[in-house]
């Protein structure tokens, strides 16, 4: 049976001998071209970040030796670092790590309950969570800013939220409004639904509390899903611009994306310097991505668009 079934297909597929080789060559050439288009701007920026102003000025398209810096100098990087980028970098790392941790806790607890526990109104609440996925941040940023400015008991505010600046220009204001994660809740609910029911039943029979089942049975099995959420959240917050831009005023609090945007206003045409700053902001996430790329693909598969 199997032989009879595969035979006609395989004869249809081998349309001569040279054709597959040509096809394969075309395939690799086109993939390499697109890959080049995708990566080249980063490479160009990387090379530019080591160039002095003279190198940049001497660049000529018909002279490939001018593509590379004459001398690889770290001057642009040391200048960028001296211009507070160390602080911006640490701010971004701290803010991204804090928010990611909050996402892991909030999304795993809520995702677990939505997937495995029964309670009244569960499905309605879950739909409500999903609905917030469709609320763009640009819609909420203005009222959110007003709320954060009028937050009671913070930044000199009284209980009515008047008199001071609230959480504007504080780490609190940078971090806390980013805690909600409908996406993470959804992702982990999808994951917890795939775990076998026998596991928790066994633990229940042993008399474990719901929290112990979550903590000792479910979480140890969720490494992959938590890793997906970690890389997604960290990358998202690291790259986020609009909220930190609105909420920070002082240099000590700015994140790296805000620092980079301001840099562009200050050093309009100093491209070597601008590209060094761009690389400082970009290389950490590119590195994180290359280390963890299978989680990115899994994350999209898990949050599954059912075709």
């Amino acid at each position, binding site marked *: 049976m199997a032989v009879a079934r595969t035979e006609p297909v395989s004869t249809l597929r081998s349309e001569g001998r040279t054709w597959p080789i040509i096809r394969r060559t075309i395939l690799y050439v086109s993939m390499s071209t697109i890959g080049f288009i*995708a990566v080249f701007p980063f490479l160009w920026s990387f090379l530019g970040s080591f160039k002095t102003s003279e190198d940049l000025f001497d660049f000529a398209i018909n002279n490939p030796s001018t593509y590379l810096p004459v001398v690889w100098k770290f001057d642009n990087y040391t200048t960028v670092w001296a211009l507070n980028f160390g602080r911006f970098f640490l701010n971004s790392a701290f803010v991204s790590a804090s928010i990611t941790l909050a996402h892991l806790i909030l999304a795993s607890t809520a995702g677990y309950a939505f997937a495995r526990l029964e309670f009244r109104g569960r499905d309605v609440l879950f739909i409500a969570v999903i609905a917030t996925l469709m609320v763009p941040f*640009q819609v909420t940023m203005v009222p959110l800013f007003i709320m954060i400015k009028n937050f009671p008991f913070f930044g000199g505010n009284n209980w009515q939220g008047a008199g001071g600046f609230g959480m504007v220009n504080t780490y609190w204001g940078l971090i806390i409004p980013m805690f909600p994660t409908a996406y993470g809740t959804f992702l982990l609910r999808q994951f917890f639904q795939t775990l076998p029911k026998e596991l928790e039943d066994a633990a229940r029979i042993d008399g474990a509390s*719901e929290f112990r089942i979550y903590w000792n049975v479910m979480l140890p099995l969720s490494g992959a899903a938590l890793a997906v959420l970690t890389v997604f959240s960290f990358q998202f917050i690291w790259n986020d611009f609009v909220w930190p831009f609105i909420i920070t005023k002082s240099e000590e609090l700015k994140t790296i994306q805000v620092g980079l945007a301001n840099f562009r*206003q200050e050093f309009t045409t100093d491209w070597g310097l601008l590209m060094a700053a761009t690389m400082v902001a970009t290389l950490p996430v590119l590195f994180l991505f290359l280390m963890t790329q299978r989680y990115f*693909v899994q994350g999209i598969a898990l949050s599954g668009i059912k075709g």
Partner: protein
Amino acid sequence: MVKARRRRGRFGNRGGLAGYFFVGPSLIFLAVFVILPIMAALYYSFTFYDLMSEPRFVGFDNYAKLFDDLRYPRAVTNTLYFAFGTVPAGVITSLGLAVLINRSIRGIYTFRALFYMPVVSSFVAVSLIWLWMYEPQFGLLNTTFEAIGLPRLKWLRTANTAMLSIIILSIWKNMGLNMVIYLAGLQGIPPHLYEAAEIDGAGGWQRFWRVTFPLLAPTTFFVVIVYFIGALQMFVQVWIMTTQAGNNALTGGPLDSTITVVVLLYSNAFEYLKMGYAAAMSFVLFMIIGLITIINVKVLGYDSFS
């Protein structure tokens, strides 16, 4: 029935209480930082509020003002131009890429990773990189154009091509993201359908149009909607690429050719402190996106999201 309830009670989720404890913190944060701001946007949209004095009720004045504001129709037109410029071209590119890499050949994971790299970097960073490449005098694009005999372009510096330049960058930035979504869709198509089509004598092109494309329709719909909603919120590219240093930060590029709804919204809120007016703009944007979302859910069904 009684038995089931007793079981649940005995094992710690009495009356579903444990469930509420688990979802509570998440729901509180969502309510305070997502749902409350939408209601606040509605409230502030009926007021005059400059952050200094108390909000003053002004009825529908802010909404009426949208019709008088000369920049608002400009911003809406630009935003739609951007959306219709990025979405169809971007979706076709991503589908093409997904079909291209949906095969198991040597090195395919490397190619996938390369195509995905623009997605993981920030819009601020890629806008800066492209700003340099678009630079009219020494920029890579113009020097290359000159070398191969094409005319130099002004890219971001002239009203004709400024938005187009941003569209090109944005398609490049997102092609990998939609590619991965399409890839998931492609891998959900059962292989026996292709075998059947092949036996019926369908060529590669026919197989794509008769099998792949129709079966990907829900994915395409999803990608188009999400991409379109994202395009309506475009802000960072304009902010980095066409806002002139030293100038009033409000400029939306040459002759306002790149001002978008969110750029206008931002500047009214945080430059002019017209919070009520900006809230009205936010709420109109929210209604439009809400409408698109409802259409989305109606067509695809709630199932696609759960």
